[in-house]
């Protein structure tokens, strides 16, 4: 089991979805080493998952593990806020 389990909800193959995926992959690579599992869920193909997780906005990133559950909304272009959301703020200035 990896230390981080991340779910990213996006809507179709829009530029905003692509941007979020690229931003997230870069952050994972730079800060989480290999200790993460990432699931990308398209709400148009799988609306029932969005229903279960009560997703309203896309893109939404959910940190399922480690607890507590965290939600980060947006295309993840503001890297500092993403790191705060993932409890990685100590990495900010390292």
């Amino acid at each position, binding site marked *: 089991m990896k230390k981080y389990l991340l779910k990213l909800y996006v*809507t179709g193959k829009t530029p905003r979805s692509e941007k979020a995926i690229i931003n997230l992959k870069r952050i994972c690579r730079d800060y989480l080493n290999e200790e993460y599992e990432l699931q990308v869920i398209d*709400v148009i193909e799988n609306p029932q998952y969005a229903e279960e997780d009560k997703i*309203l*906005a*896309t*893109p939404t990133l959910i940190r399922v593990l480690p607890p507590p559950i965290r939600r980060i909304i*947006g295309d993840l272009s503001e890297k500092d806020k993403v790191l705060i959301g993932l409890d990685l703020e100590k990495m900010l200035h390292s």
Partner: protein
Amino acid sequence: MQRDITNNEIIKLETLIPGFDHISNGGLPLNRTTLVAGSAGSAKTVFAAQFLAAGIITNTASGVFVTFEESVDDIRRNMKGFGWEIEKWEKENKWAFVDASPEPHESSIVAGEYDLGALLARIENAITKVKATRLSLDSLGAIFTQFSDSAIIRRELFRISVALKKMGVTAVLTAERTQEYGEIARYGVEEFVADNVVILRNILEDEKRRRTIEILKYRGTSHQKGEFPFTVTPEKGVIIIPLSAIELKQKSSNLRISSGSTELDKMCGGGFFRDSVILVSGATGTGKTLMATEFMAGAAAGNERCLLFAFEESREQLFRNATGWGIDFEKLENEGTLKVVCEYPEVAGLEDHLIEIKQVIEEFRPTRVAIDSLSALERVSTIKGFREFIIGVTSFIKQKEIAGLFTSTTSTLMGGSSITEGHISTITDSIILLRYVETFGEMRRGLTVLKMRGSMHDKDIREFTIDNNGMHIGKPFRDVTGIISGNPQKIQKGDFDRLDNLFDE
């Protein structure tokens, strides 16, 4: 549902919410979104849920409920009180929830641009799942508190309303207002659904709550204007009282019925008309309840069914009084010709009383109805609400071709008139005044038929007495003047002769 695509006319969807289709001239604009705005406690959520429930109960439409505020469990539980089995409907694929209520324990951080694509996808999924043609979204204010950027939310809500239109869904969006009279809704939500706006109000007036509904605008199609009273009942939910839908179309009959007193019948030119409204006005103790009681007994004699609404006295009191006047109410009730409904006016609002009165009349199907007294009902209402009640009751019983006798108490012992009369006198067909007459240190009772539409009637003020056989009407007061104005004066013999000869040549 009517369809007429050719001339681009706006088609309306019958909501089946009682009264709403009347005041909206046919229902909600089909395939469009209507904003329902109201202050806290104005029954927005009930309206939104009823819009879906009415479609399901009548088997005409299934619906999707999007909640931004209350939890799904709360809504299921709260609406059960109206008899709406949402849980069962969900299993039958007639009702689907989209739960967008906030999660209390989770915080979210915004890191970049976003839209509400997931919400739209979930709504579309739910609509497809139950094949919904109706959708309610309750309430918009709550989503603005979940997301800080209201410009994005407004844009996205507009996108959702466009998508709903494409899917052929008629939608109700609720939004909160901070004042009863002021801006339409908070956060400027009316800007993106500005075509149709309905306002629910819950106004505090003279320490009494009064609910009204108003269609503010319906772009491109007609509707009734102004505020209409409505109430929320446990069995039916929102019921709107469509005053403007009342039409002066009732038939008029020449058939006479007995007032219960042969002497009074004679004074009225042969009895009351079968479908007329009679007002009996008098001070306390002049014999109004007696007249209502005799009116009921008169029905039973002719094998009619009669209904008495008593708002002043208890059953026991009424039955004991009737026995005192030689009328056996208990026997009449057992025979099924009489029904007595006793209620304290304060137990409900006037709108609720009106709905109950109508309902009992529908069920019992009487040929005559008495309400004793209107003045007691006046206590629980504002002047405007009372006037609407009177119009509602009289038009209903006229429609049903029922005779109605209402009593009204005057505020002063001698003469005088009550506020009630001011509202009702033009609607009534007959008015009977009961008055105290003070002569030589004695209180006597006088009765006169002031008005009898469509018939000759006795113009005298007659003395009447009450004993254990009821009411007895005697001779006119020939030697007293000023009875109706409340200032009775004995006329000297000489004056009397002079008056008699006044018009002799």
